[in-house]
Structure formats: C-alpha cells, structure tokens
C-alpha cells in the first residue's frame, strides 16, 4: 500500500501560539482520510500547509510523492483544493468558471469544453451553466467549486469542510459526489466538524484537538471507544425514577431532570429490550429519547474536555 500523503512532526505557530504541535499523519493512496475536530483545532492550517499555501515551521510533508517545502510546484500539479469558502469567480458563469480552469490546466479547447459539459451534467449544474455564479445557492456554489477542482483530474483532493453551511439535501449530494470520486481512484483528505460525515465517508479518521492528534482509527474503532450512546428515560416523579433505577441498575441518574441515562447501542432492538426489562415500571416513563455519540462525546471521551470555539478566530482569519 502506497501513501498519498505523509506528515511527520508537523508544526506551525501564529503569533507565538502553536496551532499545530507535532502532527503525524499517513494517508493511503485511493482512500478517504478525515481530519475531525472543532473550530480552531488546526484543520484548515493542516490543509493549507499540505496544499502549499502556508509554510510549516517544522516537520516534513509529502504529497503525491513530493515534498511540499522543496518541490511545491510538483505538489500543486498533483492536487486539487476545495476550501471552506468557495473560491469561484462570481462575475463569471458556471461554464466560464470551468473553462477558466480548463485553460489554466492547458487543455485543448475542445477537450476543455467536453470536460466542462460533463462536470456540469454530473454535478447537476447544467441549468445554471449560463448563469453568473453570484446568483448560485450555497450548495450549487460548493458543487461548482468542486467541479473546478476536478477539471485538472487531480490525484489527491483536499476538501476543507465541504458541507459546512449546506442544507441536508445538498450535503447528501456532496457525499454522493465524494464517494464517486473515491471509486474513481483518487485520494481524499477531508476535514470536518461532524462525526457523522467522517463516519459516512472516511476509511480512516484522525481526531485533532488544539493542534495535536488525539486519536486515529477506522470509524467503527473510534465509535467503539466512545461510551456516548445511551437511552434517556424521563419520569413524572421521583418514585418512578427510583423504581426504574432499581430494576435497571448501572444507569446514570439525573435527580433534577428526573431522567435516567442507560448505556445502550441505541438501536430499535436494544430500546425494546430495555423497555421489556422495565416491565410495569415502563408505565411511569414520560418520554424516551435515544442519544447517539456526536463530536462532543468523542471529544469528551478522548480529551476530557468539551469542544470549544475559543480559538475559532484563528482558523477563520484569512
């Protein structure tokens, strides 16, 4: 198995504050790798260094076999980048944006037109081809941005929070497109704040917190390590709470909200089994809710502190 991206001891600080504090990553060619973390964790900085936009203070990064510090031109020729903020030319139409990229990749005119038409079609943008990008919705703009990235047929694609701010339908569509790309053999480096997105797309996940990788693994490995999934039972009074706690045992009791948290895998079968165990006491349950692990749980489990946005400013200043 060959590596498409390797980072060793990657360091970067801005204004004396360490944003990346010794990152080691390895991404196998033809797989999807997800860097998961809250705002300010250093995700964007990592992408910026790997895509030659920002110089690292220390460590080594190789992308598609080339060192980003000593041979950035070769890296640029192999990669495509779609950032958090769509980098499309708002004053041009969808088609013109794609043809601009085709020209910059030195495709023949006919070849450029063919690729542009293909991508417009594939990304459901054919109707918007002749419209100025400034009129596009967030989802359309993001799709156009990714289509522009694909014109040059990059082998490694960086997607920096590709679905942040998108509605659920556009998000699903983006996921579909990303899966299609991996099927075509490219390597995807994806950053996200959402565990479900990493879960859905990634072969391998690294969790980034305050510039350090706090965990790596396949999605199922990570989720298994998180004791986040539980069923929450709310009762009308303390008597019900006491009765249920006695029957179930091992549940976590919240006196003030009259709720019990029962660790469970949160599937339908598990919920039914739980209610069966309660027997008659189930009549005293006011409400049942199912809680699946999210990024906050991952963070709490891995770092012992909740996700915070205190350093969000750093990442978003461009």
């Amino acid at each position, binding site marked *: 198995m060959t590596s498409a991206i390797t980072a060793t001891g990657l360091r970067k600080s801005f204004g004396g504050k360490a944003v990346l504090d010794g990152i080691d990553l390895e991404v196998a060619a033809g797989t999807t790798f997800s860097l998961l973390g809250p705002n300010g964790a250093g995700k964007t*900085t990592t992408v910026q260094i790997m895509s030659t936009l920002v110089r690292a203070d220390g460590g080594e990064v190789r992308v598609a076999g080339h060192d980003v510090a000593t041979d950035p031109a070769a890296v*640029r*020729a192999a990669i495509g*980048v779609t950032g958090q903020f769509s*980098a499309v*030319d708002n*004053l041009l139409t969808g088609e013109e944006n794609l043809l601009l990229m085709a*020209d*910059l990749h030195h495709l023949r005119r006919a070849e450029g037109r063919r690729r542009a038409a293909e991508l417009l079609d594939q990304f459901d943008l054919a109707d918007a081809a002749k419209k100025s990008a400034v009129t596009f919705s967030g989802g359309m703009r993001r799709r156009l941005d990714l289509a*522009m990235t694909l014109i040059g047929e990059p082998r490694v694609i960086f997607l920096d929070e590709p679905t942040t701010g998108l509605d659920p339908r556009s998000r699903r569509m983006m996921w579909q497109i990303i899966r299609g790309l991996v099927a075509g053999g490219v390597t995807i480096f994806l950053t996200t704040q959402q565990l479900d997105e990493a879960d859905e797309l990634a072969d391998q996940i690294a969790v980034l917190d305050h510039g350090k990788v706090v965990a790596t693994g396949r999605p199922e490995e990570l989720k298994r390590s998180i004791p986040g999934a539980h069923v929450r039972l709310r009762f009308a009074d303390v008597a019900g709470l006491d009765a249920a706690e006695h029957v179930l045992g091992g549940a976590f009791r919240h006196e003030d909200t009259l709720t019990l948290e029962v660790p469970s895998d949160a599937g339908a079968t598990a919920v039914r089994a739980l209610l069966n165990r309660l027997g008659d006491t189930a009549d005293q349950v006011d409400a049942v809710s199912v809680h699946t692990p999210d990024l906050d749980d991952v963070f709490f489990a891995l770092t012992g502190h909740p996700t915070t946005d205190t350093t969000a400013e750093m990442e978003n200043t461009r």
Partner: protein
Amino acid sequence: MTTMAFTARDSATMTRRTLRHAVRYPVTMIVSVGVPVLLLLLFTGVFGGALEAGLGAAAHGAYVNYILPGILVMTAAYGSSVTALGVNRDSTEGIIGRFATMAISPAAVLSGYVTSSLLRTLTSMAMVIAVAFGLGFRPAADATQWLTAAGVTVLLVLALTWLAVAVGLAAKTAEGTSGFTLLVQLLPFISSAFAAPGQMSESVRWFAANEPFTPVIDALRGLLAGTPDGGTALVAVAWCAGLALAGYLWGRALFRRDLNR
C-alpha cells in the same frame, strides 16, 4: 511547451478573465471614463476662464490644452482604483488562494491583472482625449513627441497598476483599498494639473512641485505642446519606473505570503 510559454499562456488566460469582468460589468468602465470627462467639462467650462487668466502664457491659448495631461493622470488614477478593488475582491473571495494551489506561476496571475488594467485604462484615456478634441484641444506635437508621450503614459499606468495590485492583495477588505484610492485620486489636484505650483501658497507649492504626478504632467504637457523638456521627462520616467518596481516587488511578495499571519 517551455515554462516561459506556459506563463505567457496563463497570463493571457488571466487577462481574458479580468477583461471579461470589465465588459460584463461596464459600470466601472463608465465611471472611470465619466469622472475624468466630467472634470474636463467642469474645469474648462466653469473654472476655465478664471484659471486661464491666472496662468497667462503657460496656458498656450486654450485652457483645455493645459489641463488635459492632468486629466489623463486622473484617468490613470481611476483606472488603478478599479484594479485595486478587483484584485481585493479576488483575494478576499478566495480565488487567488485557488490559483496559488495550482501549477500557475505568480507572474502569470499578476501580469494578467496588469495587462487587462493597462488595456482598460488606455481605452478610457483614448475616450477622454476624443472628448478633449471636441472641447478644442489642439496639440502641437509631432509623431515622435506623440510616441514619447504615449510611452510616458504607459509607464505611468504600469506604475499605478502595479501599486494597485499590491494594495489590493494587502488590504483585508475593500475598505482597506480606500487609502490608496483616495491618495491617487486627490494627488493630481495638488500638482501642476490645473494651476502652476508657482502660484500656490508656500507649503503647498513645495509639495506640488515635488510630488510624482507633477513631473509626469509637465512632461506630457511639454510633449503635447511640441516643446518637450528632456530633464522633466527623465524625472517622470524615473518616478514611474521606481513606483512600478516597488509595486511589482510588493505584489510578488504578497502573492504567496502566509494567509494566516
């Protein structure tokens, strides 16, 4: 293809892109021609008589002959303001970041801005000159003097454009370019554009006589009147070349700077 040829081709692509912006959104073009024409009409029609009397022999008859070089400098200033805003928009919207992650030389991206800006501004100037002819502009320059004047003009536009590109890259918001915009639009008023510095109050006079636009305006005026002054022209060329080089070096340094400084 060699690297040079790729750079030239990318530069042409980038030039086409920005020229397309200008053609598609002609408002900026209309403003950058309209404002200088308005000033031309204002100064010849409203203040012309009074100012001409003050200038005496220096005006060589029609006041429009006297002020046209200054108006042309202002046209270049407006053109560069449009460029600064355009570069800043591309920089803040992220498309320059996209170009920076692609296998394109910075020279191609930057020279694309400069070439399109040069073409746009020279077109504006041609329109302003056409209006000036209608208002009685009668130059006495021969072919060589016209060519030299054109050369000085191109150098001036290059200088202002390179500075505009750097300012556009440096500013974090569109408002950030306003300092430059205001400066280049106001400086011609405190120069020899509309009145001879000799008639200004003492402190203003020193500034007007020594600021970069004055030698450029004087050199153009001399050339168009058929009475060129080699010394002034050299000072003008030196200023333009110096400013162009400063803008070029600054812009090049900014293109691949750390985005998160």
